[in-house]
């Protein structure tokens, strides 16, 4: 529990609950990305955007705050650092669930959980390697960039590890592998590399 308290658990839970409320309120809203004349638009449901932003920010918030001390920690710290990753992904999925509970059953939402897990894992990886402030920005920017690619160059977009509304679903292995990689890296580095820590130090 003390580990969680030291890793912004309360802020993360508040954040995800807030995002879930917004996702439920605006569940029917989608932002169309339609930059190409001859390609179908790639809609970004508000649920997906909020869940991704929430996942990225939660990944940043759960960064260790006393890196030097945690590096001294034994295997137990590694376990905790690993455990936080699926917990963050689960909270991001909570946002999706809150939004999906409101929309009609035939709305295209089945592709969303896999995307959110992949992006949250990417967020955790970015936090481990680049630091907590860069990670959320990077997560959302990468997400938006992927959506633009899926809209403008669908042939390339099909190879991205992200699916799109009404598109071919992502193999279940992709989010699982992404989550496993992020978890393993977080455990190995106890949550953040020394280099990333040095990057953000005042």
């Amino acid at each position, binding site marked *: 529990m003390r580990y969680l308290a030291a890793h912004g658990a309360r*802020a993360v839970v508040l*954040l995800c609950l807030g995002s879930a409320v*917004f996702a439920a309120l*605006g569940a029917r*809203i989608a932002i169309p990305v339609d930059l190409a004349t001859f390609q179908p638009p790639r809609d970004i449901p*508000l649920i997906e*955007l*909020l869940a991704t*932003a*929430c996942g*990225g*920010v939660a990944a*940043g*918030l759960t*960064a260790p705050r006393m890196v030097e001390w945690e590096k001294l920690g034994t295997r137990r710290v590694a376990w905790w650092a690993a455990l936080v990753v699926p917990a963050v992904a689960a909270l991001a999925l909570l946002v999706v669930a809150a939004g999906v509970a409101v929309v009609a059953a035939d709305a295209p939402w089945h592709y969303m959980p896999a995307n959110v897990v992949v992006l949250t894992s990417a967020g955790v990886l970015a936090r481990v390697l680049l630091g*907590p*402030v860069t990670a*959320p*920005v990077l*997560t*959302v920017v990468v997400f938006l960039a992927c959506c633009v690619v899926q809209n403008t160059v669908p042939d390339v977009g099909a190879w991205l590890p992200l699916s799109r509304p009404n598109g071919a679903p992502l193999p279940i292995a992709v989010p699982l592998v992404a989550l496993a990689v992020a978890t393993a890296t977080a455990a190995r580095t106890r949550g953040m590399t020394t280099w990333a820590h040095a990057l953000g130090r*005042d």
Partner: protein
Amino acid sequence: MIRRIAWPLAPVTALLPAGLVLAVTAGMSVEHFGRRPEWPATSALAHEHLALVGPLVAAIAFHRWATLARPLGLFAAARLGGTGKPEHWANFTRVWAVCAVAYTVGLLPIFARTAADATYGGPAAGSILLGYLGLAFAVAIGQFLAAVAPLPVLTVLVAVLVFLLFQLPQVVLDAFGAVLPVQWHPLAANEHETATALLFRAFALIAIGGAMVLASRLGRSPDRPARTALPALGAVAVLAVFLVVAAVNPATRVTAAADPPRRCQPVEGVEVCVHPAHDADLPDLTATVAALVRAYGRTPAAVAGVHDAASLPPGEVPAGRVVVRLLLDQTTRDTAGEDVSTAMAGFAGCLRGIRVTGDRATYEAGIARAGELARWLRHQAGITLPSEAPYQPPTTGFFAKPPDEIRAWLAANDDNVAQCRYGAEFA
């Protein structure tokens, strides 16, 4: 100089945001180069671009103020205070100034293009000014949120929240546009934002932004946390009050000119008029109308005049007049070709017939025939709409006849066509 603006942070903290604002502003302008240069629309871009620039600027302001709250920032705050102004105002004006300069540079190309090519009117100072006030509003929101939650990690979340806030008029309630910078209303050549709406919006933005900047100081004094909450709640309350006022008492934000100027030219007995802002479209429009009238064989009874939508006062369209809406992504020839050919074929007469007599079956058959005739007219005039398959002349029926015969029939039945009374021989 840059060092002084950015100080006590490194110059990159001013240059990077400025570069981002510049890139986004210029990027959002790109698509507007493909449109007609009109001053009302271009002036409004100064606030419409805030749809993306606003969240970006808010995130920049948030990140900077939240960073200044960290240990390094304690010195920064002290030195900012040393300028003689309260540090939250000093920081606010610096961020605003840097972003405003970048915003201006990003807007310059589209304004220069409009200044060079527009044939009517001039920049609307009110709309442009509201753009810069909106920019200040975005900075104020970012700085305010940084005082409430000084965690640089949340930067992206602030961008998302401000993005959603600025979407409210478009998504939730149009009336919220009265107190938010982005209007989501494309302005036609004969439209302008009303002075009262501009004044009210300026007042609202200054009041809300001011309250937020005032409240943003209090996060700086951790020794007196109780004094933080009240002004923060006050700032949010000011925003809420303005949103409620806007929703309860929605204002007319855009009006069309009551008697717009027009430039007219008679073509084969048909009067063709455009708004002076569309002078460049007049030759295309007259050529299209002339080609269609020649295809018809005589001045059609159904069409006495062709008007650009911006050249007419709002309200009822006089009988016998065709209103052509010059679309952004279509050539004048296509837009006018479709509208004028259908009008010549008596489409308006068919609609009027349904309205007056209630005889749906007859007049819907008439609509189908009017559509055939319109296609034939366009084919004779050499107009192919991008939405249509190429015209294949039918081998049987009325339109298989030679053009001269059809024109002779049209000359004899001109009034009938105008009133959607197609005879049996037409089948």
